[in-house]
């Protein structure tokens, strides 16, 4: 492809990659801490995955296999667009199968198929600061992280309980990393939070517009905030997928007509499709049932 000749491998110049790589190493060494990095202008808009794209570009090698999902699906327009971008600029192999991928870039979901050691999950993050909507000032939130002063968040969650009888946060549900840093899991539904805890894969988070990178090494304790008398409860669905019958997975609600007709189907399209097609011989782990 001619683009590969004009731009460097995976688009970014080597100087930029080194800068991002240095930030990634700090992020891994200080799990949950937001490392500032000199995010570059990318050929896609801010808020559309520039952070994730920069992290992926810095990490990706010629022998990687890349999967890109948005809302759990491989074929949503932005996922298609980002996958194309790396096919063009890096010429890497791509896949829709979670278990075949070495690097997975995601927006808003963690795949249902359990991740394994050696895989890297790259999250696109819009607002990396979990305290931002409680305190708009960076100088202030940075001080709160330094002092491990997370009282604001506990007060917010407690007010939820006082008003609603339960914590009324369903996505971007804050977590505590290895007992130290409060972290925003990106706007994944809280259903996915338990998958982050002691995950065998390396999880990297990139926020391009806000110029922050953070990380969860494999096997890191990730605890969703809660109270003793109000323990964290992941979202539960009272039905299975209408297409593949899977239960205990995250469902999308699809409106089928204008008379109130609805159906619920897997949000993870790869997971759903692999359950509906016979297993391929060469893809171990395809039929693994999620925890």
């Amino acid at each position, binding site marked *: 492809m001619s683009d590969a000749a004009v731009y460097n491998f995976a688009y970014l110049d080597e100087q930029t990659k080194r800068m991002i*790589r240095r930030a990634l190493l700090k992020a891994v060494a200080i799990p949950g801490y937001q490392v500032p990095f000199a995010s570059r202008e990318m050929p896609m808009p801010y808020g559309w995955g520039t952070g994730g794209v920069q992290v992926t570009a810095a*990490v990706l090698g010629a022998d990687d296999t890349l999967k890109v999902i948005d809302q759990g699906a491989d074929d949503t327009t932005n996922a298609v667009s980002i996958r194309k971008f790396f096919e063009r600029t890096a010429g890497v192999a791509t896949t829709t199968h979670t278990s075949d991928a070495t690097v997975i870039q995601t927006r808003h979901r963690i795949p249902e198929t359990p991740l394994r050691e050696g895989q890297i999950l790259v999250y696109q993050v819009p607002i990396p600061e979990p305290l931002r909507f409680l305190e708009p000032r960076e100088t202030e939130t940075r001080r709160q992280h330094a002092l491990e002063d997370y009282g604001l968040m506990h007060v917010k969650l407690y007010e939820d309980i006082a008003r609603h009888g339960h914590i009324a946060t369903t996505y971007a549900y804050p977590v505590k990393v290895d007992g130290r840093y409060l972290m925003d899991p990106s706007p994944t539904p809280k259903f996915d939070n338990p998958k982050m805890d002691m995950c065998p894969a390396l999880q990297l988070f990139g926020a391009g517009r806000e110029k922050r990178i953070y990380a969860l090494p494999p096997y890191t304790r990730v605890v969703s905030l809660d109270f003793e008398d109000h323990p964290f409860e992941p979202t539960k669905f009272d039905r299975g997928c209408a297409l593949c019958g899977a239960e205990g997975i995250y469902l999308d609600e699809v409106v089928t007509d204008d008379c109130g007709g609805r159906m619920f189907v897997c949000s993870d399209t790869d997971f759903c499709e692999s359950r509906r097609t016979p297993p391929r011989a060469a893809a171990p782990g395809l039929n693994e049932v999620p925890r």
Partner: protein
Amino acid sequence: MSISAVAPGFTDSVHDAQRVFRAVLGALARPGRIARLDATLVPPPPLHSTAAAILLALADFETTVWLDDGLSDDSEVAEFLRFHTGARLASSWREADFALVTVPERMPALATFAQGTPEYPDRSTTIVIQVEAMTNAGWEFFGPGIPDRVQFSAAPLPLDFQRQLAENRARFPRGVDLIFATAADIAALPRSARIVERA
């Protein structure tokens, strides 16, 4: 010394750098795990190809590198790193982004390298320590990146290194991250690793 005399760096600067970075990322993500790093370059002695490859992959004109006593007298190593990375050589380890240690027995105390600040703990030194041997025995660690516990030790190191490691963790989130390199392998102990204190 003339530029023509500088030993060559990466054969493929893009993909070699990526491969070395992934090895270092893997090492920091799995503290204490020893992994092979095949580096094709031939740096001037006493520099190992592993340690040289790590610096070539990560350092550039936006970073400073401090060379320990074993290297600072050696203009060939300094010239090699300057030529291939463009990094500025730091006169003191206290402010350096990277430190390269080849005589670990005599290295400055971990607490005297840049530790970062409470607000910006990332503004700290990453120390690359060249050792003769590493083994999955000896000290025991737990923490992020370690499924249960991992044993790791390297030699030679300062006599009080166990205490220094415990103190480094106690300063968390401030602190330094350590990358160990033998002639063939690398391993890392990020500041997040907790050492099991034994008598």
